[in-house]
């Protein structure tokens, strides 16, 4: 005869499942979708209403370079396929460089290390698992400590700390990155190269592969001498107030 489930036997597993589902949701929030052309992201209305939207311009310069400095090999991987946007405040000089929000997607499949087989390995489940997690996601939630460092009629440059999170292989970690931001209003000089007001963002920071579950055994990794647990990310993004989709239509 089947014994009916008692309340404890039902409630505990259900609560456990709910907690796990909640934790999974908290660990990896939903990603912004790509536009139909795929050259940028759809900006949520909540972000669009916060200020001026600047769109990343992929396909030109190297945007993100990864550096692993291990005894056997100095590995560099680069990508110029980063898509996304950044929202800056509108107002006086300091407010106009206040970052209100943003999101960037770096396709794992776009990382080029100069060796095709190594690029393939990076996408495998053992490393970045590109089939399950096709993008490394940077979410920007704000900024602090903005300070003007250089200025002219044609541009203004600020040092600032960008706040947000980075998601790798489904694991999300909070980050605070010192950065340099240069704003360049549209001019005769810039219009021929890219329409709209331009923005340059430059930053360099380190991440640990163990923090994102890419590597479990740090000691084994270090003893192999081929890849370092500490990866330096060098970021140079150029953005414009005219999205790549709009620029193509013009």
């Amino acid at each position, binding site marked *: 005869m089947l014994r009916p489930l008692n309340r404890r036997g039902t409630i505990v597993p259900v609560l456990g499942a709910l907690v796990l589902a909640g934790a999974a949701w908290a660990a990896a929030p939903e990603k912004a979708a790509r536009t139909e052309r795929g050259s940028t992201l759809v900006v949520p209305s909540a972000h669009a209403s916060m200020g001026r939207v600047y769109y990343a311009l992929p396909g030109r*310069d190297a945007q993100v370079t990864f550096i692993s400095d291990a005894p056997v090999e*100095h590995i560099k991987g680069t990508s110029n396929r980063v898509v996304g946007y950044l929202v800056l405040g509108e107002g006086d000089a300091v407010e106009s460089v206040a970052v209100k929000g943003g999101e960037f997607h770096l396709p794992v499949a776009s990382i080029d290390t100069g060796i095709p087989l190594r690029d393939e390995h990076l996408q495998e489940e053992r490393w970045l698992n590109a089939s399950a997690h096709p993008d490394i996601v940077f979410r920007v939630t704000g900024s602090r400590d903005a300070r003007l460092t250089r200025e002219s009629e044609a541009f203004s440059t600020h040092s600032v700390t960008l706040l947000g999170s980075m998601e790798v292989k489904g694991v999300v970690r909070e980050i605070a990155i010192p950065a*340099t931001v240069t704003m360049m209003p549209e001019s005769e000089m810039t219009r021929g190269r*890219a329409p709209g007001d331009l923005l340059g963002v*430059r930053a360099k920071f380190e991440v640990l592969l163990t923090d994102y579950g890419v590597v479990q055994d740090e000691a084994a990794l270090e003893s192999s001498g081929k890849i370092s647990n500490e990866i330096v990310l060098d970021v140079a993004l150029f953005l414009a107030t005219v999205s790549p989709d709009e620029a193509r239509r013009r």
Partner: protein
Amino acid sequence: MRRTEMLARIVIAVCAVGVLVQAVALWRATGGAGFTRYFDEARAAREAAQEPSLSDLFEGTGLDDAHGKMEAVENRFALGLLPSGPDKHAVSVLTLALPSLLALGVAASPWGRRRAR
């Protein structure tokens, strides 16, 4: 050991050392890479076809003051210490050295000398 056999062993040893030395010299001359890589024509074509860089617009603005110019991933041949694949990427100091070391071992071994006596 007969003189001709001695001469043969010496020639084998010299050739093996020659290959080893040249492999290491080529490794150092091409940048001392850990893994072998080749010039990627497809990548060069992609880079030639892409839209012009914007980085020069930002020169003199202070954008690169803190970190300098971004390191590029070079697109050129480099002989590595280790192979990086099964095809032409298998060529490396290790795969060049192994046959040479084997030849050195054969040249230096006493095997065969006993048979000559």
